């Protein structure tokens, strides 16, 4: 390990850059502040640097492909991107089988954790404007760099004690410059540049074109997610989150999302009043047609952000009286512990956990013609009870985020925090706890199963889409399956071919060995 070079001036940067030590002994773990499938986030102190508080994301590298391309990209971005609204890494180094990413400690935690702990019905519009504007600054910088974030959501927006807001988690971000190899060769390739094809992100926040487009998607997909995040901040959770993830996808594809639907169906009774500017801003982000959504720079000029206040306002109205990140994490852990205890009797261990959870939650599907919605039927609960709905959201979010988080770890604000189901306002009653049953082991097991059953889910989704007569999607699906099948066959053939070659080589080797021995004799 290299010796520590504290406060070393970096060549041509015009501010001194602190060098953080690259060995685990220099850090003292203070507290666990988050846990995900393949990473744990700690609050820690960097001993040689006056015990500066840092956050350390410890990633289990065994869970990643050995080229570590995703992780390499993420750490590179966190090194090379420099913007006041983007969370940088101090440094990263391996510790045995884990990678430690040392980052500034954002004491406010993620907006998602703030909301679920203290603002279950969402933040005030003034606070939202500040948070969104800062996020937009970060997004604008990213987009101008040719980067998509691809996982914009409250869980990836962090706040510091001074009210500053930073965008985090570049685990699934992508550069449009690197995605296509056919660049600038003069001949235009079939897939146009600046477009990405792979489906990545977290379903509730995903833009429709990310989910089903065959022409690819680009910067405007982030704008959609930004719009969803606005709603998340306003209501305390993303729209359609009362539906399981796969259905949220269908809804988004088949139906233009409208603000009013959201208010009617979810905030019945105590509907919040939002300004016209806010609604207009969100609506523009949630246009089904990506080209009609505004760019980040255009959004920044939207009236909604005109009179937005400074970070002091957030300190006063959001951070004041908020439990610390550590406390919030502890509460969520206790909640989970209770869940585990409750779970013991009816949980079948080792089995495909997520399906288990799913099955227990939903006993069937109802097609609601009036609302043009698919409603899940839950066996034991009354369906229009908003508390139950909220709990349902908590549980589903966990499944969802974990399911997608293999390569998208939340920095500083791990998925587990999302399990904090408005603990301050609605103390968990028994019904909630039984409803919200899961534990980490089941989760991991479930995720493995989920991974394996992706094809299965795809099948189910196509069936549902058939229900709507959405044949186009189905054909596309079939093509994908066909391609996958052919690829598998090709792979098998290749393998066979290779084995034969190996055998041949081996025989040659033996023969030559034998003849050599003969000569020697």
């Amino acid at each position, binding site marked *: 390990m*290299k010796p520590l070079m504290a406060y070393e001036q*970096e*060549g*041509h*940067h*015009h*501010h001194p850059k602190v060098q953080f030590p*690259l*060995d685990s002994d220099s850090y003292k773990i203070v507290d666990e502040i988050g846990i995900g499938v393949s990473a744990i986030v700690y609050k820690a102190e960097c001993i040689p640097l006056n015990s500066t508080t840092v956050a350390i994301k410890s990633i289990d590298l*065994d869970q990643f492909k*050995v*080229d*570590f*391309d995703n*992780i*390499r990209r993420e*750490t*590179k971005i966190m*090194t*090379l991107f*420099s913007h006041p609204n983007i969370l940088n890494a101090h440094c*990263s*180094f*391996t510790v*045995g*089988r884990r*990678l430690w990413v040392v980052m500034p400690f954002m004491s406010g935690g993620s907006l998602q954790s703030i909301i679920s702990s203290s603002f279950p019905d969402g933040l005030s519009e003034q606070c939202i404007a500040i948070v969104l504007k800062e996020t937009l*600054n970060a997004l*604008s910088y990213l*987009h*101008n*760099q040719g980067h998509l974030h691809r996982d914009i959501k409250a869980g990836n927006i962090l706040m510091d004690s001074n009210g500053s807001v930073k965008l985090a988690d570049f685990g699934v971000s992508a550069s449009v*410059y690197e995605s296509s*190899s056919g*660049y*600038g*060769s*003069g001949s*235009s390739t079939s897939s146009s*540049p*600046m477009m990405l094809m792979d489906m990545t992100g977290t379903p509730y926040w995903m833009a429709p074109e990310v989910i089903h487009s065959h022409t690819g998607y*680009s*910067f*405007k997909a982030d704008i959609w997610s930004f719009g969803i995040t606005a709603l998340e901040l306003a209501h305390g959770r993303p729209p359609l989150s009362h539906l399981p993830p796969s259905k949220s996808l269908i809804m988004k594809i088949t139906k233009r999302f409208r603000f009013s639907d959201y208010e009617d169906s979810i905030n019945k009774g105590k509907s919040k009043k939002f300004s016209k500017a806010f609604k207009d801003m969100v609506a523009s982000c949630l246009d089904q047609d990506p*080209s009609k959504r*505004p*760019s980040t*720079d*255009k959004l*920044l*000029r939207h009236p909604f952000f005109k009179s937005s206040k400074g970070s002091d306002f957030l300190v006063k109205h959001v951070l004041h009286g908020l439990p610390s990140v550590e406390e919030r994490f502890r509460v969520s852990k206790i909640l989970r512990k209770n869940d585990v205890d409750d779970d013991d009797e009816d949980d079948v261990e080792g089995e495909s956990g997520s399906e288990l959870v799913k099955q227990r939650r939903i006993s069937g599907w109802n097609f609601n013609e009036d609302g043009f919605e698919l409603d899940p039927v839950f066996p034991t609960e009354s369906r229009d009870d908003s508390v139950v709905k909220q709990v349902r959201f908590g549980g589903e979010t966990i499944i969802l985020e974990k399911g997608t988080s293999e390569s998208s770890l939340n920095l500083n604000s791990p998925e587990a925090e999302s399990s904090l189901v408005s603990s301050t306002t609605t103390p968990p009653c028994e019904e909630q706890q039984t409803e919200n049953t899961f534990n980490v082991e089941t989760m991991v097991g479930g995720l493995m199963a989920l991974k394996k059953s992706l094809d299965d889910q795809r099948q189910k989704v196509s069936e549902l889409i058939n229900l709507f007569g959405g044949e186009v999607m189905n054909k596309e699906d079939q093509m994908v399956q066909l391609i996958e099948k052919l690829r598998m066959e090709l792979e098998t053939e290749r*393998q066979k071919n*290779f084995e034969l*070659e*190996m055998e041949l*080589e*081996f025989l*040659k*080797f*033996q023969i030559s060995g034998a003849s050599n021995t003969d000569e020697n004799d």
Partner: protein
Amino acid sequence: MPEKSLGLVAGGEASNGGWMRGVVGLSEEGFKMMKGICISKPGGATSRAVAQRLRHPAAQSDSTPTSSTLYDKSSSTKMKGLFKSKPRTPVDIVRQTRDLLSFAARSSESRESKREEKMAELFKNLRELKSILYGNSESEPVSEACAQLTQEFFRENTLRLLITCLPKLNLEARKDATQVVANLQRQQVNSRLIASDYLEANLDLLDILIAGYENTDMALHYGAMLRECIRHQTVARYVLESQHMKKFFDYIQLPKFDIAADAAATFKELLTRHKSTVAEFLSKNYDWFFAEYNSKLLESSNYITRRQAIKLLGDILLDRSNAAVMTRYVSSKDNLRILMNLLRLFAAKQNKPPDIVSILVANKSKLLRLFADFKTNKEDEQFEADKAQVMREIAALELRDRP
């Protein structure tokens, strides 16, 4: 639609803004204010035409009608932030960039008063070059403009200047420069990759890029450029056969993960991309290469290094073009012993990385047969014991993982 032109200009602003913040030490608030002013400042017709020309440089001519027509066709977006009034062609921009780089190369930190101004101009030019080569969110790159740019770029020593001056640029400009250099490696002029020709005549530039791994600030920029340059077979051959190759064994174990991972990606690219060159290199350099590979990588104390090394070794040996090398490798008792130790390590592990498991399972029969057939001339109890253990573990794996 409107987003595109904004992308171009706002990009320039971001760059300048970042630079100003760095150099002048503006407060965050001040920076935002300045940015705000730029954004709301409507551009004049001239700057719009300039921007349009930049975006459609193929439609080059000195008569304004062409560009204004193009402008009218394009969106109604307000252009802003471009203060230059004289239209410049891609060739102009390359030339000016070259002049500014020459200036940067010879001027020292504080000597010349206009330095900051000129550096700002340089950063802006680099951003513009990037826009021409990659297009922006609204328009795709125009191949003719790219070709002109590329030709002018390699006509003289612009690449050398850019690479040597890179440490003098600010972070944003370094990133732009890196992307420009990366893109230029793929640009064809009259169906020739002239970047390859240029590099072939200037192979010492590769020495600078590789040495970048020893400089924390430059490593990721030079590393990214390097990976693009070794797309050219002659360049890859030069690097493979150079003395630098030995340094990679250290670079990929540097303590900073982002740099080590970048070096590992380059190392892998060098050893897998150009099949025939790799095969030739390995057979010529077999002895020292695999001696280093075994001792420094496969037997490294760093778990991650070992895991990456065994995967890469598999990729190398199992490539059909390297069949002869593979045969030679597996005929060595020492090699097999090292591999067996690794197998023992991985096969006995409780939570085996999925890629290791799949390799073991996919090759279990081959592995078992290989070990069974492998006999040493003289008695070697330890070797036989190790072998037996590994075979047991692989066999057990087979049982466990059978559906």
